[in-house]
């Protein structure tokens, strides 16, 4: 399996090369070249490995394992040094605890354990590799013009673009490492690398806020890392194996403890309540970082780990409580998203919410739920990266990330506006991706034990979801004042990447029956011996709907002609074409339109506090359930 090695090493080489070069078009071209190569390699992996099931790869351990331990210690020292420098005692304490646990495992138990297979690839990791390889690379390409504009507009921020792209590529390599590692010690190593990348990139601007938020992120992720390290230690003490495939195969009797501990780590990484505050703070990072790390890939590593252990979690008490944490997070985060007018915060809360759905599916862990979870991961990655990048492009021209300032985007930036509409529709409307996965999720919930609770959570949560997406779409297509078209200022490359992602949103929805058949169904069948699907006739109807949606815009050709155009009704007041009307006392006023935010209903503080209380209790119950199941015995 040379291709796995290639995917692990190519981004690393790119990272080193990019770091060595100054700001220059040559470096920009190298970034693009590396992106194309990585994307191509991940597609090559799909083409060569999709029909081969799970392939385990024996890979020499000792020297690499040693190097990883060394690097782990170096990373810990790095965080330690910064923690001391910026006076963050909690981060220092957490990093010490985690490193102590890790060294205890590495020195005390690892030498006696021999992992037969360190790497593997199966259908699920192919899916993840495609998300990392294709979407991740597209975001790297987008980041080139974006960061140029960013530095031009923020002259107070030191230009650290060399470091930026270096970390971006190291991150891609680490993500490939996460999805290809069969050795859990390796998985933890790559996991920690992504934590560090996130830490560095959130602090990119080095403002006080950025530094505080980067430490918040690293603290919560280290908390999860401690859970992960504890899982390794427990395995070392009692089981003598740290191989993912063996643990998942062994089932709940053997693997429930590590599954629960790693799920705990996954909850922190995926920013589930009560840990979600770090993801909101992470929105201070440049937007490509939010798109890459904080929506489409890194936070997916958390749910990836939980979904991997779904066959172990299913039907257990800890599994039920993990699922409920996800379900409650979905409802609470969706509700908070209604109250936000900062576009990136809406996207962040929506990300938290959708990851919650994935966690709920994974905690339930039946064959249908796992199938739905992977569908959610795919569609969310595509649509959400498009939305983040769209907001990034808008922000650079409009100089605001407030949704209220996006009114009339379809006239001011027609292409970006339409692509964002596609992205938003992709998040909640039939027949596009996320709706397909929500449908699958509903069907999975209904069969689950305790499923009615999950059904209630998803029914209310998705109703709220419809509200906040539709009102945002509404502002984008409303035209309160006919502002000039400023789209020509958007770099061509940004538009190209947005176009590619918009095409992916539609394309993946069209190809979903094929994706399901080729990748998801074999994966689920391999684990459970059952096949989940939506039914042939339903798929046909979905495609019919899709065809209708794609054809309906043609009607605009007809509606364009022979219409008498008037200004909107303004209560009879004299109104100009750009919607200025005669107010009282002869003052001319401009019409303004503002969305509802329902603060009194879903106020951020109140909802967040309630969500934290409930989910914290659920996590306590999760560990209590583990003790009850005799896990620690």
């Amino acid at each position: 399996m040379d291709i796995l090695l290639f995917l692990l090493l190519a981004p690393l080489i790119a990272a080193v090369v990019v770091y060595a070069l100054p700001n220059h078009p040559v470096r920009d071209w190298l970034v693009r070249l590396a992106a194309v190569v990585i994307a191509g390699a991940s597609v090559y992996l799909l083409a060569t490995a999709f029909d081969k099931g799970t392939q385990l790869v024996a890979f020499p351990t000792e020297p690499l394992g040693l190097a990883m331990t060394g690097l782990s210690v170096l990373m810990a020292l790095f965080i330690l040094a910064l923690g001391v420098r910026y006076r963050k005692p909690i981060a220092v304490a957490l990093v010490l605890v985690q490193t102590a646990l890790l060294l205890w495992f590495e020195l005390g138990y690892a030498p006696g354990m021999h992992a037969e297979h360190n790497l593997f690839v199966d259908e699920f990791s192919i899916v993840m590799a495609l998300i990392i390889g294709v979407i991740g690379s597209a975001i790297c390409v987008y980041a080139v013009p974006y960061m140029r504009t960013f530095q031009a507009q923020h002259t107070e921020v030191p230009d650290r673009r060399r470091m930026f792209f270096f970390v971006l590529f190291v991150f891609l390599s680490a993500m490939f490492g996460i999805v290809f590692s069969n050795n859990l010690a390796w998985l933890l190593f790559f996991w920690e690398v992504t934590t560090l990348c996130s830490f560095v990139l959130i602090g990119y601007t080095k403002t006080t806020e950025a530094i505080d938020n980067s430490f918040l992120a690293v603290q919560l992720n280290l908390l999860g890392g401690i859970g992960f390290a504890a899982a390794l230690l427990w395995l070392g003490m009692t089981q003598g194996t740290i191989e993912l495939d063996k643990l998942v195969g062994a089932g709940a009797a053997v693997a429930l403890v590590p599954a629960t501990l790693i799920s705990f780590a996954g909850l922190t990484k995926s920013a589930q309540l009560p840990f979600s505050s770090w993801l909101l703070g992470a929105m201070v990072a440049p937007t490509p970082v939010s798109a890459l790390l904080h929506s489409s890939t890194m936070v997916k590593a958390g749910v990836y780990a939980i979904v991997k252990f779904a066959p172990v979690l299913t039907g257990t008490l800890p599994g039920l409580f993990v699922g409920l944490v996800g379900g409650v997070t979905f409802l609470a985060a969706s509700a908070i998203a209604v109250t936000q007018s900062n576009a990136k915060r809406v996207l962040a809360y929506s990300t938290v919410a959708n990851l919650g759905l994935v966690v709920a599916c994974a905690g339930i862990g039946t064959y249908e739920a796992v199938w739905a979870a992977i569908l959610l991961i795919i569609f969310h990655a595509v649509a959400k990266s498009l939305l983040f990048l769209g907001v990034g492009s808008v922000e650079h021209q409009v100089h605001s990330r407030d949704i209220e300032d996006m009114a009339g985007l379809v006239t001011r930036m027609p292409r970006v506006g339409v692509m964002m509409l596609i992205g938003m529709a992709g998040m909640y409307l039939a027949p596009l991706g996320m709706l397909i996965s929500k449908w699958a999720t509903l069907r999975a919930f209904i069969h689950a034990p305790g499923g009615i609770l999950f059904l209630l959570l998803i029914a209310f949560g998705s109703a709220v979801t419809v509200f906040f997406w539709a009102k945002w779409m509404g502002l984008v297509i409303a035209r309160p004042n006919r502002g000039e078209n400023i789209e020509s200022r958007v770099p061509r490359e940004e538009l190209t990447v947005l176009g590619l992602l918009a095409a992916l949103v539609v394309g993946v929805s069209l190809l979903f029956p094929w994706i399901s058949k080729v990748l998801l169904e074999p994966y689920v069948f391999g684990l459970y011996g059952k096949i989940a699907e939506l039914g042939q006739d339903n798929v046909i109807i979905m495609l019919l709907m899709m065809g209708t949606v794609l054809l309906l815009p043609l009607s605009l050709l007809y509606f364009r002609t022979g219409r008498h155009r008037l200004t909107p009704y303004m209560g009879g007041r004299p109104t100009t074409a750009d919607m200025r009307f005669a107010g009282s006392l002869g003052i001319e006023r401009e019409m303004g339109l503002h969305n509802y935010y329902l603060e009194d209903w879903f106020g951020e503080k109140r909802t967040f506090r309630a969500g934290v209380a409930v989910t914290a209790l659920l996590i306590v119950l999760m560990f209590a359930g583990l003790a009850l199941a005799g896990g620690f015995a």
Partner: protein
Amino acid sequence: MNVLYAIVFLILAPLAGGLIAGVDRKLTARMQGRVGPPVLQPFYDVGKLLEKEHVIVALSQNYFVLAYLVFIAFSGALFFAGGDLLLVVFALTLAHVLLVLGAYSATSPYSFIGAERELIQLMAYEPMVILAAAGFYLATGSFYVNEIAAFPRPLIVLLPGIFVGLFYVLTMKLRKSPFDIATSHHAHQEIVKGVTTEFSGSTLGMVEVAHWYETVFLLGLFWLFFAWSPVIALIAVAILYLAEIFIDNATARVKWGFALRSIWLVTLVLSALNLVVLQYFGGL
């Protein structure tokens, strides 16, 4: 699934829906002590709307309204063809979002408020509709309408909570008082026409026809509770609609906050109770 039923629905539903609207107006008038228009008046109205001048405020608004009509008809057709109830619900949500987007695109302050209120309506009734689909599934073991309709026992007995909850929501779906918060058929309720303020002529006609389609679909949904006996089903559906007319005339519009809160409360309590009882004590 049966394509023939879908075609029959597409042709006959506007006729039936228009007639129902005519009877509705007649009865409403009688309840208010008026003579009322002829029963066929809704058809005359739409016919006249179609002849009006094509006036718009925004290019895209007609597109959204057309798409609204298409997907309302689509979801109804899917329902009567015996399709997957969840898919019907999703298509219906899509249709209403399209109507809302049409109102937004008009960019008038009145239609904008109407759009926001229509979205609040959508948010209010969506959970009940999804949970009703779940209830039908738990009772019959199928999401397919034709299989639910063929269920040999009276579903009303198994799903009384779902039935009452859905009836509570029906008032809003039919745009009737006290829950007609986005737009109403009655002039006295409105400052301006809410979500449809900027639609005129044939565009407004399309909104009307879509409403007829939806009325027939909604009555079909209630039919399922009584589907084991068509005679009883017909009587029950007729009584339900008469009750809606009565409620419409006996109540005044409430604030949206009350509408949302009460609908969510009813949904939560009734459907949770019903589903739990069904899953753990009865069913199948």
